[in-house]
């Protein structure tokens, strides 16, 4: 019913992409043994093979449009990380945006032609999210016009960059710049790390793989240690800040520019949250339609587990969430596109809010999706635990997004900082715009002695627009409470940081409430854009379920703020259960609409044809432990043991 509006949200592209996808999936070059049966080294090797092939095919077909490249990559590689990933995203993108024309001329042809492979080395063993704490140094030597790079401590060793361990021969290294005896803060440098031709580490460079991880088996996340390693002055990325030959430092004009890249990457993570959760829902809901268990009614055949209320209660709110996040991801991407023109022209007025909002949404969606994937896996019982379900892989691949590109709690606090700032502006009589404009109402409220909580909201629980108002009231109440608690702490203490820290649990709650409001609002706004009546009807049900389920999980906030009465809370809970039954007949169609190909879903439980059990058996027979009928451990250990006793 909703076919074609799923994964990409752009109906026009679906058919052509479908054809392209079939072509790639059936391409014999991309076939390989089930990844679950391979060792980490083998998975890495397969990933390199496929990435290399993909680059060749991109060249062959002359695909150059970034969106096309993105789609083609996802089709070739599926949902798995690739060792070249950072080459195309961070390495190339940084060189395109932060270099001078001369630098572009030198580096970009090499990068685009993959004559060099690069990565982006920012995180260190001792520092991640707090960038100012990075310890790697780049000291300018005017005598030779070179920078000397050093990893002065163990904690300063670059740690985690993808593709660094074994694949890359260059890296963009972030380091504290020292010139004329002064530290000028973090700057980016192009650093060759391996000999072209032999791939041996260069003298002064220590590089390797950081070892096994929860997931990302195909990725050679690496470490990098530099000892008095020299690079020419021209290897500093100099579009903004510059070091002149004599060591004079020229300051950049605007430091907000880097916000743009961050917004872009976070919008990708929001989209990723939607996609990963959609995949998990697809598997769990299809399997729940195939699995029969127990009896609801004595004497009747075992029902599909999807008919149990508890199972629906686990899965359908997640399905609604997956759809909600799709719309949020698309919104951020569109907004970013819309204002990126302004950014190039130097108009950064909309950027701070978008930057603050995406920080929180990145955290909110990745946390929710992370928990949701696990819920889906649990809902598949024992078989969800097998790698053949595909769910363990989805989880371990997705879960680091709660940490990378900004640890989630820190992200929430960034959003909170913006919220508190907006609240302060409103308190001092200024008006604020955008998603926080609801705070303006608080100033009107202030004239009356009443607490904001006492503001009457008439919530109609069958009406998404009314529910948006309820979420708005909750956000306003929690932002105000956090801001007031912060002020109270500030009145007691000297240190601003200390007061902030003592309010941070409240601040995170305020950010979460704000993000939750934004999501409900965007989902609701989307409904009126859907022209097909049947699709709009089912999307409205999902939107209602999303909003009402969120209330039933946070009744404390709504009761405490007086937004809902006890009776309404009962009605909300009751309506959630009614919606489960309403959505039940469309559940499988709603996940089919995500349109994942079996190959990309990578799940025996989630197969489109539902032939689960026979294919689990076929899959298991290929397991490495089954290579021989009698395992060698019998001859090595079991037999001698029995003989000895």
């Amino acid at each position, binding site marked *: 019913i909703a076919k074609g509006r799923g994964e990409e949200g752009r109906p026009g592209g679906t058919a052509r992409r479908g054809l392209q996808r079939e072509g790639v999936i059936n391409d014999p070059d991309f076939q390989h043994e089930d990844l*679950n049966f391979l060792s980490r080294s083998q998975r890495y090797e397969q990933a390199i093979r496929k990435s290399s092939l993909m680059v060749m095919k991109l060249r062959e077909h002359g695909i150059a449009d970034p969106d096309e490249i993105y789609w083609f990559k996802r089709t070739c590689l599926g949902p798995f990380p690739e060792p070249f990933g950072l080459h195309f995203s961070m390495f190339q993108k940084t060189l395109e945006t932060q270099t001078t024309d001369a630098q572009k001329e030198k580096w970009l042809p090499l990068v685009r032609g993959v004559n060099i492979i690069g990565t982006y080395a920012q995180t260190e063993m001792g520092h991640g999210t707090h960038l100012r704490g990075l310890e790697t140094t780049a000291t300018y030597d005017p005598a030779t016009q070179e920078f000397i790079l050093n990893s002065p401590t163990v904690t300063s060793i670059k740690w985690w960059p993808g593709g660094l361990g074994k694949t890359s021969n260059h890296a963009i290294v972030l380091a504290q710049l020292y010139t004329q005896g002064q530290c000028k803060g973090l700057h980016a440098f192009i650093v060759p790390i391996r000999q072209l031709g032999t791939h041996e580490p260069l003298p002064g460079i220590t590089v390797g793989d950081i070892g*096994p*991880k929860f997931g990302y088996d195909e990725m050679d996340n690496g470490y990098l240690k530099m000892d008095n390693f020299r690079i020419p002055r021209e290897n500093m990325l100099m579009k903004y800040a510059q070091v002149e030959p004599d060591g004079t430092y020229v300051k950049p004009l605007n430091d907000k520019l880097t916000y743009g890249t961050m917004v872009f990457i976070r919008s990708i993570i929001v989209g990723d949250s939607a996609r990963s959760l959609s995949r998990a829902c697809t598997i769990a809901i299809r399997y729940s339609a195939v699995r029969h268990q127990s009896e609801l009614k004595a004497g009747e055949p075992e029902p599909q587990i999807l008919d149990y209320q508890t199972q629906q209660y686990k899965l359908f709110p997640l399905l609604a969430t997956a759809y909600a996040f799709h719309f949020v991801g698309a919104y951020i991407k569109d907004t970013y596109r819309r204002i990126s023109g302004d950014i190039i022209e130097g108009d950064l007025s909309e950027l701070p809010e978008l930057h603050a909002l995406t920080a929180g949404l990145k955290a909110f969606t990745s946390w929710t999706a992370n928990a949701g994937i696990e819920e889906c896996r649990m809902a598949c019982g024992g078989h969800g635990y*097998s790698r053949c379900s595909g769910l363990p892989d989805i989880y371990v691949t997705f879960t680091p997004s709660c940490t990378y590109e900004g640890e989630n709690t820190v992200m929430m606090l960034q959003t909170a900082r913006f919220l508190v700032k907006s609240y302060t502006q409103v308190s001092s009589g200024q008006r604020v715009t955008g998603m926080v404009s609801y705070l303006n109402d608080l100033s009107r409220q202030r004239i009356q002695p009443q607490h904001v909580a006492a503001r009457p909201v008439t919530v109609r629980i069958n009406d998404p627009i009314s529910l948006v108002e309820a979420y708005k009231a909750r956000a306003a109440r929690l932002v105000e409470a956090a801001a007031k608690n912060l002020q109270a702490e500030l009145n007691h203490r000297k240190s601003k940081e200390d007061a902030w820290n003592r309010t941070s649990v409240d601040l995170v709650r305020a950010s979460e409430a704000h993000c939750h409001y934004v999501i409900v609002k965007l989902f609701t706004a989307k409904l009126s854009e859907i022209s097909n009546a049947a699709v709009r009807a089912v999307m409205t049900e999902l939107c209602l379920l999303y909003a009402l389920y969120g209330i039933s999980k946070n009744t404390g906030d709504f009761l405490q703020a007086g937004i809902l009465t006890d009776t309404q809370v009962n009605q909300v809970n009751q309506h959630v259960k009614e919606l489960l039954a309403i959505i039940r007949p469309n559940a499988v169609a709603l996940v089919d609409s995500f349109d994942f190909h079996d190959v990309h879903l990578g799940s025996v439980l989630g197969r489109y044809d539902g032939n689960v059990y026979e294919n689990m058996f076929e899959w298991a027979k290929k397991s490495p432990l*089954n290579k021989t009928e009698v395992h060698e451990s019998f001859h090595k250990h079991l037999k001698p043991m029995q003989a000895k006793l």
Partner: protein
Amino acid sequence: VTAPASKVSLGYDSVLSGVNPDLASERLTASFSVEKLTARLDGGAEHTRMRRAIVEAIESDPAFSRENQYFQSQNERYEAAVRRAVHLQKKMREMGWTENGPEIKYIYRWLSGDIAFLLHRVFMRSISVLGSDKQVAKWIPLATEHQIIGSYAQTELGHGTYLQGLETTAVFDIATQEFLLNTPKISAMKWWPGDMGRSATHTVVFAQLYVHGKCYGVHPFIVQIRSLQDHSPRPGVTVGDIGPKMNFEHTDNGYLMLQNVRVPRENMLSRFCEVQPDGTYVRWGSQKINYFTMTTVRISILSDEVILPLMKACTIAIRYSAVRRQSKLKPGEQEAKILDYQTQQQKLLPQLAAAYAFHFINIYLHELFDRGYQEIQGRNFDSLPELHAFSSGFKAMVTQYCTSGVEICLRACGGHGYSLLSGLPSLYTRVLASCIYEGENTVLFLQTARFLIKCFMAASAGQPIPPSVTYLSSAKPGKCPAKDKLDFLSPDVYLKFFQFSRLLSSSAAKLQHLIQSGAEKHEAWNQCTVQLVKAAQAHCHYITVKIFVETVEKLDNKAGIQKVMKHLCDLFALHGIFSNAGDFLYDGYLSGAQMDLVTASYLDLLAVIRMDAVPLVDAFDFTDKSLNSALGSYDGQVYQRLYEWAQKSPTNQQVSPAYGKYLKPLLQNRLSKL
């Protein structure tokens, strides 16, 4: 060809020298005696001594080393587990340890399940419990001597928790006095049993018994599946490994298909029932003892498989949080320990409190079941429904809570938590399996709910109900009297919160309402299940808080232990209220202003417990080798350990063919055809 990563000698970091000052300073401020608390947790100083001696004996034996565990493939892990299991037999003889001795629990606790033949132990237990004396006499010596290796085949591809649905058949053939075992369809294939994929020679198969065409339900049969000579599968047997899983790579969970496999009549385990030579089916004795034994399994897994992983995860995450520094809290000072951030405390300290809460509830449950066992021995089965409800509900609650707790610890360690070398991913993937095995949690909560509803109805009708649920009949409380945030540190005040049985009473009312308005019973039940699960959770939560409070009251306050335990108990309770605020605000039992006081009190406690956080995990007394974590070691030398350990990774030791085969041609632009 790529060279292996060059060896690094850094001089300043190659020697791990002493305890990291950031961790050492945490231990100076302990408000209580760590050693005394450890002894309390072990149940006495003499137990601590014995445990340490055993751990020392195992850790000094290189055959038990787990250092390479994270680098090994499934095949290597399996082989290592078998090797360790064989070595353990030798070690036990050497040390004079026996299966029934007091040492055994410490041995297995240290091994944390990373060993083969655990299902062999279940095989033996099931024969002891379900077998006749004659069967015990025949099979147990063979199994003890490892002349045979057993498994326990219950779960099938199509059926797990719902046992009556199993599809494997065992048909009695009078002519040959044998049972004919069959897997009639693919979903009937046995799936998941441990030790069965590669190791076992025998297994206990659960199958639907048919005699003269009549089905008598599920019964256990001993079936030989592999040759005792060359280990090849017996005729009619298809057996193998079910493939890679989220964890338990060392265990050969297996599948088993039976086609006309015959076993003698004597192989049906017959302590409680038997098929006689003429096909007469006889049942004797009470199956209730058997039923009770199965029930206790759910309680027996809690300590080592569920609570211990949470304790380990807390140890790793809290020690690491005292070593990791990030951003500045005060301008001009050095970066703050992440443990000083309120948000980090709010993630970790409630998990620490829960670990202690569950340690105490576990002791309580064991005492309860020991008493129950004695009653049942005396043929008094009155407490059975209550014990069953306890085992189901607490299994579900503790596994669910600990699983989410371990995951919180994992994510609280940022990027490094994601490295296998942190030890956290493997703790998580192990503990989460416990939410499913021995009964899926939602199903178990509903079993508890069924018991509670029954009791509630009985209480409403004025009938007697078991002591653990008498609170269900207490009157609806008025408004909460607390006025100050300190009032919420009084157990009398917060216990009342948890006693509150509104979830249950309204479920019962709704259930009755639905039935009266014409819904069929099963449909009415299904429509109430979401709320019934919540009611069962609330019941278990209440009992846990209550037992924690009672335990703290009984502690004497020597060495500061009672005081710090009281803090943890308060934190566990207030965290429960804070996280379920809606349940308490509903009905106006608690006002909005009071809820703000609860939150304030809860946040204050975080700062108090923070001072004892490291000593409180030290008291769990895990050795570095049992934690097997670069982040959680006692000395806090996190970064050096991570760096040195990573260099031992096979990816840095072996030459990857990827460069020569793929990267080089690509870089030189002549990757024509691979």
